[in-house]
């Protein structure tokens, strides 16, 4: 009996894993392209291909890594780097919190940690597409996407040196394109998010071009301070209902 149930469990793990590997691959191909331009930013910060690979393996975070590399390039302090990473990746806190509600009670802590390490925008999207988190499905998806993220970063660092300057400049825009792909659909459906996005554009311009005090700050510090102020203001003026938040 117990042998049979062990066997069944192993089978379902294998099935979950294969399914995850399949669903993760399109995500991985997207990662490869975006990580390439992240690699260009990493190169400007002085990272080698190995350092870029390790950074992407440890962080697996586009905006967070981009902010980190910008801060490294700006000779920022470790505290600024930690704060910048914290702010740009704060959304993972929300995603992990949402996921924590979707594990079966029998899930061991090691599997909660394993799944947690792979919380990205896209892999979180896969996880919440099912009512209950299946750890081995997530492992499969992580295996077919995260290595491509790391390879893409290294490729960007290496190829950034080989490609003509104009091409590198144009490719560096792709990361911003990816950010637009996250903020625009939400702006379309949510009026408050739309207002936040516009306010952020204006505030970011004003802070980096018009106010001498904030112009003297590093770009990373401006990002942190503006994010906290604008998000807090939005949260005070238009708090979201705890129920509706799951849908975001």
């Amino acid at each position: 009996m117990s042998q049979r149930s062990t066997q069944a469990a192993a089978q379902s793990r294998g099935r979950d894993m294969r399914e995850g590997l399949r669903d993760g691959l399109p995500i991985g191909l997207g990662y490869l392209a975006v990580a390439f331009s992240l690699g260009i930013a990493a190169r400007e910060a002085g990272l080698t291909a190995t350092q870029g690979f390790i950074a992407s393996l440890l962080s697996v975070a586009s905006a967070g890594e981009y902010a980190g590399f910008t801060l490294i390039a700006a000779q920022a302090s470790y505290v600024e780097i930690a704060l910048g990473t914290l702010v740009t990746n704060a959304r993972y806190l929300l995603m992990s919190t949402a996921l924590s509600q979707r594990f079966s009670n029998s899930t061991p802590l090691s599997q909660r940690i394993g799944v947690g390490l792979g919380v990205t925008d896209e892999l979180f999207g896969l996880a919440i597409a099912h009512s209950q988190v299946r750890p081995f499905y997530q492992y499969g998806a992580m295996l077919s996407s995260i290595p491509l993220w790391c390879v893409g970063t290294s490729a960007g660092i290496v190829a950034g040196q080989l490609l003509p300057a104009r091409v590198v400049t144009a490719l560096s825009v792709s990361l911003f394109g990816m950010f637009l792909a996250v903020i625009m659909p939400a702006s379309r459906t949510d009026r408050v998010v739309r207002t936040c996005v516009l306010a952020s554009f204006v505030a970011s311009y004003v802070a980096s071009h018009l106010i001498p005090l904030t112009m003297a700050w590093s770009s990373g510090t401006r990002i942190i301070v503006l994010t906290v102020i604008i998000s807090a203001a939005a949260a005070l003026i238009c708090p979201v209902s705890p129920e509706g938040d799951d849908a975001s």
Partner: protein
Amino acid sequence: MSARIWLSIIVMGAVTVAIRLLPLTLIRSPLKNRFLLSFLHYVPYVTLSVMTFPAIVESCETPLAGLASLVVGAVAAWYGANMVSVAALCCVVAFVLGLL
């Protein structure tokens, strides 16, 4: 220089991993604080917006190429183009207008 970069990478990784794992290991019941929930809801959009503008304009060969890239990418994303398409579109616009 290299030691500073390695340490920075470790700081980035440690903070990111902690953010991902703390809720899954410590918080076993749902968050209740409405302000905190709302704040976390808006943070990703605000921080990505602050990082995108005006940086996208200044990262291009000319301000015109940057602005065009921003507008084209924003419109495509608004109408539901996926992440890779938007990124590619922004690059093409930036490259072509950068040649002018």
